[in-house]
């Protein structure tokens, strides 16, 4: 039987002890939940560049550097990936869909253009520019001799729908202008053409085939949708199929670009949260034990006048429960506040150089590309759940610690203190 009046009196008259315990629980829970929240936000941020283009991972292959930059050239970071390899990659467990693309550099006597061939019906890669159409119309299946231009590039070069553009000596009519800045810069170009035509141009190009063998059905950029839990296995499988020179970009690739601190934070978040929980458990256990020690004579007197060990444990457990419950609520509020403040922050996710489409020797080509991602707050219900479970563990620890100390305590202690 718990005496609520005694419980209230203890908590109110021993304000300092109650407050310290409450703040300890609140701080421990707030740190633990906040670290988890931050890690999850960062994890989501690292996925953003790929999520932008509807992919879970991208595949490229590094190859030889062209001897001269004349005519059509494949950047050294996007060597051909054979059709046979693409088919085998498609059969890796966890791979849901593959969108192929062909990235080309077209060096002409007085100009240069970055060209990407893609399939307008794809669900990943440049096909997602569908929503970024600025004028004209989007490419569709069956289009031949048609192209779209990037908005910034089109403005600079005064190109509008109807303009005829030469790519590898062929005429392409500009039918639409798209704002490439609306998707990740991994899949962007200055000119977009149908995938089949890009493949035909690449496989028929003498300058490309002087360095690589580009087959009619090959591609040099793959956007893969995959089971999120199997990304690491899929990346390993792709490298086993396409060779050591294959570059598979996953959310981890962006994380590594940010340096060791971020990598450590996310890799060891469970460890950090676990250590915080353990530290809080130890602190609560220590404070509870100190509380019991502080009340040794009082507990001795309680036992002497007829309170059983169970009566005392129930009473002290109720006190701990109230403190932990309020501490948990405060901790969750602090964590939510922290998460809310973090949600105003953005993080610049750097794009690895081999994923940037612009040659480094052109103006702006050496600039580090990045994608600004606003950190998001995950579901508060999840946070409250984590907080409640942690509080339960903390509460049980406090109860066990107090219980053991109380059971060990003899009622004759009270006479020893006379």
């Amino acid at each position, binding site marked *: 039987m718990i005496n609520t009046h005694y419980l209230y009196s203890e908590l109110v008259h021993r304000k300092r002890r109650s407050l310290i315990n409450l703040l300890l629980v609140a701080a421990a829970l707030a740190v633990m939940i906040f670290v988890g929240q931050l890690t999850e936000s960062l994890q989501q941020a690292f996925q953003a560049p790929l999520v932008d283009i509807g992919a879970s991972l991208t595949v490229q292959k590094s190859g030889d550097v062209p001897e001269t930059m004349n005519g059509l050239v494949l950047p050294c970071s996007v060597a051909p990936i054979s059709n046979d390899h693409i088919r085998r990659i498609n059969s890796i467990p966890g791979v849901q869909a593959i969108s192929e693309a062909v990235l080309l550099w077209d060096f002409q006597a007085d100009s240069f253009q970055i060209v990407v061939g893609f399939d307008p019906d794809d669900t990943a890669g440049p096909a997602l520019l569908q929503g970024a159409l600025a004028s004209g119309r989007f490419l569709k299946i069956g289009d031949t001799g048609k192209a779209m231009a990037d908005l910034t590039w089109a403005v600079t070069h005064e190109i509008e729908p109807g303009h005829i553009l030469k790519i590898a000596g062929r005429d392409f009519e500009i039918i639409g202008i798209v704002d490439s800045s609306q998707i990740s810069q991994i899949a962007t170009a200055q000119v977009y053409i149908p995938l089949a035509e890009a493949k035909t141009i690449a496989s028929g190009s003498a300058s490309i085939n002087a360095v690589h063998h580009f087959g009619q059905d090959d591609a040099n950029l793959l956007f893969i949708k995959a089971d999120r839990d199997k990304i690491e296995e899929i990346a390993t499988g792709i490298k086993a199929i396409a060779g050591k020179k294959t570059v598979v970009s996953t959310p981890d690739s962006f994380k590594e670009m940010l340096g060791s601190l971020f990598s450590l934070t996310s890799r060891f978040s469970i460890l950090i949260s676990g250590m915080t929980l353990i530290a809080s458990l130890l602190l609560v256990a220590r404070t509870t034990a100190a509380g019991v020690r502080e009340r040794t004579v009082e507990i001795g007197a309680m036992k002497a006048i007829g309170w059983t060990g169970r009566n005392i444990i129930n009473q002290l457990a109720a006190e701990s429960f109230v403190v932990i419950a309020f501490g948990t609520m405060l901790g969750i509020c602090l964590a939510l506040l922290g998460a809310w403040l973090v949600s105003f922050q953005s993080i610049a996710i750097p794009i690895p150089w081999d994923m940037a489409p612009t040659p480094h020797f052109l103006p702006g080509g050496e600039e580090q590309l990045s994608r600004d991602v606003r950190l998001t707050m995950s579901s508060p219900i999840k946070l409250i759940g984590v907080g409640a479970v942690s509080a339960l563990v903390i509460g049980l620890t406090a109860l066990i610690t107090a219980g053991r100390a109380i059971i060990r305590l003899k009622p004759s202690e009270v006479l020893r203190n*006379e």
Partner: protein
Amino acid sequence: MNKSIEAIKLCKRFGAIEPVKQVNFTINRGEFVTLLGPSGSGKSTLLSLVAGLDHATDGQVLLDGQDLSRFSEDELALLRRDHIGFVFQSFHLIPTLSALENIAFPLYPVKMAVRKKRDRARELLAQFDLSDRSDHLPSRLSGGERQRVAIARALVNRPGIIFCDEPTGNLDSTTGKEILDLLLKLNTDKKVTLFMVTHDTNIAKLSHRSLYMKDGEVS
């Protein structure tokens, strides 16, 4: 006369130390017995054994004929709750509870209507002239008032035996006499058995009988 407390060959050892050695005595119901002896003679240890606060290493304590060595810790607590009252030298009141609440404190874990518990405590509060101190915390009571609250607390469960450990030790002589008079009145009017540890030979003179303890042995 009925035996209230009986100690038979009672021993307590803590390693090589033996503060209570082969102690035998009997206290009858309604008797007032004092236990005298110098500091460190084992008085408090003996009190904790006969009051069921600790188990003896050897020998027996019979309380109203019940062998305490057969009782578990919790059973001893329940026995103390129902049959025994304690008055300590340092009062040992709960500092966060008022005088009234301190008196009712032994009844908190008892299944009894809250109103009944409060009524019993109020009755004792009035009996000990403490009604105007009902809501005061122990820190706001004088030494004599605290000890009166402690005695009222010892009586709230209507015990047959009261154990007192130097009940006047922390009080001035006038207040000490008041407290002693209260205890004597309980013994005389309500026939409560009193077993009191004291240094004071003047108190011993007021008791029915005195036991003297030295080096763990009672004579």
